[in-house]
């Protein structure tokens, strides 16, 4: 492992890669601060640029964007009560009241230090857990992988917002349907191409991500007459005050951070759960664990109440890399985008990544840590200035997002059919978004579609077409029982609320 860490450090600490982490964190913070534009959009916009680099550098850039976006989301939660990403909603419960008391700088500092500490702890957990899990996952067979993918897709649907399970499952099926377009991987028979040569190779992953996130988000902003830059304009005018944290507050954070990091990391590892659930759980747990005096302060600017969700959401971000790096199965929409990008580089994540491309495996882990250091050193003092950059009018921001989306697709294929296809998918996605159909399950399914079919094919061929493979192996059965438990628990929970 020491050798791996050194490989990772030597890759991540090159001048080019440090510069990439800085660029990524900076760009991510900018996008993350804009309510409505989250890490997935930020990463999607970066993908075409990353293809100009080697895989390790490209992924380092994307990891920087991811952390930057989460940090940017916390900033708008604290200063404006307008979370940039769902994972930072719980941050606003105590961060915003603290900012209203004239302690915005302190709230931002607590959030930044908690994120940093949460990230540090989870990087340590990742460091120890990922190689062991990689070795364990070598024993996984096709039926286990197939069952794991079913679990991941069901979980992301079950953990979507209240009353969205069926909508999310429809999006999962739509994602899988889109992934089935093009040549069959084994027989080369074309499917759903309608004799259009442009569809023979299937629909590009970057195209789907750009259309469903970057482009459709830009269209939604125009359609709903939102102005995400209004928030940034207010941030640039906010008096932040001191960013010093006093001794008493530090003491409180010392207790909160370790326990919140554990819960955040574990929730992040679970497929589909992610930073939002982690931050809410950590907030709830913290409220139960503190003394009665501190409990009274929750919702009114409590240090523990701010530190817990911030630690947990950053720890969950690192945790979500575990299934992607070790099993090749992303646990969240964001890591699905990163997995798609990795596949684009010709790198197949999974247990063998640890052995075949150790420089990628370890440099991602190391760069996460470097990213957090950069966020703390550079972005925290720079927040008011970043906000000033962001205060560009919506009339410029939207065309620029559209420009990066369309150019991103054009430079990958030099084909105008892809531009039309992207516009078509973006229009449908914008309409679906209006009625709360979630997009992350679609992306996750699109990325997993090919792998899922491949593993089902192998399982069925090995068992001579019998579905017994689903219960032949204990591991497969356990994974499927977990999936069934999640579905039954979800139905029961919603039956009680009479919402499905």
């Amino acid at each position, binding site marked *: 492992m020491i050798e791996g860490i050194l490989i990772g450090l030597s890759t991540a600490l090159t001048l080019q890669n440090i510069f990439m982490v800085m660029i990524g964190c900076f760009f991510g913070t900018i996008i993350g601060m804009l309510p409505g534009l989250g890490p997935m959009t930020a990463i999607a916009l970066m993908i075409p640029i990353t293809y100009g680099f080697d895989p390790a550098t490209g992924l380092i850039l994307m990891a920087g964007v991811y952390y930057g976006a989460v940090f940017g989301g916390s900033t708008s939660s604290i200063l404006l009560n307008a979370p940039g990403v769902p994972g930072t909603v719980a941050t606003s419960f105590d961060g915003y009241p603290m900012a209203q008391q004239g302690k915005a700088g302190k709230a931002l500092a607590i959030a930044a230090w908690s994120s940093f500490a949460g990230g540090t702890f989870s990087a340590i957990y990742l460091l120890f857990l990922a190689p062991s899990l990689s070795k364990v996952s070598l024993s996984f067979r096709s039926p286990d992988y197939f069952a794991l993918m079913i679990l991941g897709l069901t979980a992301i649907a079950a953990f979507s917002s209240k009353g969205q399970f069926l909508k999310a499952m429809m999006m999962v099926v739509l994602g899988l349907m889109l992934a089935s377009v093009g040549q069959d991987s084994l027989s080369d028979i074309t499917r759903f191409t309608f004799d259009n040569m442009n569809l023979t190779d299937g629909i590009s992953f970057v195209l789907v991500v750009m259309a469903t996130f970057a482009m459709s988000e830009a269209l939604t902003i125009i359609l709903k007459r939102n102005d995400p830059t209004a928030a940034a304009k207010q941030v640039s005018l906010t008096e932040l005050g001191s960013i010093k944290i006093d001794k008493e507050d530090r003491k409180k954070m010392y207790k909160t951070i370790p326990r919140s990091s554990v819960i955040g990391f574990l929730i992040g590892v679970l497929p589909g759960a992610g930073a939002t659930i982690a931050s809410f759980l950590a907030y709830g747990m913290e409220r139960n664990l503190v003394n009665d005096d501190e409990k009274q302060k929750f919702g009114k600017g409590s240090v523990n109440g701010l530190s817990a969700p911030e630690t947990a959401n950053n720890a969950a971000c690192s945790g979500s890399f575990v299934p992607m790096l070790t099993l090749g199965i992303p646990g969240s929409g964001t890591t699905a985008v990163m997995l798609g990008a990795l596949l684009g580089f010709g790198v197949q994540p999974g247990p063998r990544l640890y052995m075949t491309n150790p420089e990628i495996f370890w440099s991602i882990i190391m760069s996460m840590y470097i990213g957090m250091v950069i966020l703390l050193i550079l972005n925290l003092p720079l927040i008011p200035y970043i906000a000033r950059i962001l205060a560009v009018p919506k009339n410029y921001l939207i065309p620029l997002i559209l420009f990066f989306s369309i150019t991103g697709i054009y430079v990958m294929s030099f084909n*105008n059919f892809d531009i039309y296809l992207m516009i078509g998918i973006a229009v449908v996605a914008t309409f679906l978004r*209006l009625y709360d159909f979630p997009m992350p399950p679609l992306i996750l399914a699109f990325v997993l579609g090919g792998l899922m079919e491949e593993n089902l094919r192998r399982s069925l061929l090995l068992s001579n077409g019998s579905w017994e493979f689903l219960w032949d192996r204990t591991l497969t059965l356990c994974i499927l029982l977990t999936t069934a438990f999640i579905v039954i628990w979800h139905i029961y929970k919603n039956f009680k609320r009479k919402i499905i």
Partner: protein
Amino acid sequence: MNINTTKIISLLFFIFSVFYLYTAYQIQVFAFDENAPFNAKTFPIYLGYAGLFFSGLKLILPDPETIKVEHKNLEYKKTAILITIAIIYGATILKIGYFLTTSFFLFGSYYFLGERRWILMFLLSFPFVAAFMYLLHGVLEIYLRDPFLKLIGVMG
């Protein structure tokens, strides 16, 4: 059953799944693969049935949390204009080239979104695209075909 737009979307998805399933059954597989436990149409057929199942459930189950969209508050005109500009962009990029098409796309988008600061609009379109092109072409070595720039001798 209360009919709302979510139900209509579910119905459309149901119809789409029927079409998908029909197309999946039409996929021509090799003769020796016809009776194999798994062939090129097996997975799409399962997906078609899954689409029917979930959209069917959404159609028949009650939907107490109805999403209400105030259509009169939505900005359809500007959205449609932006989409049209993007389609025109797609139609012209191969003939006119990246530089002019992209610059006009940006300039037009700023204009139709209500911007009237001409100098800023110009700076954030033509010089901006030129700088971006230099980044792609000159730094990242991504070749961009541009008949216009070739004609005036800027690009080889």
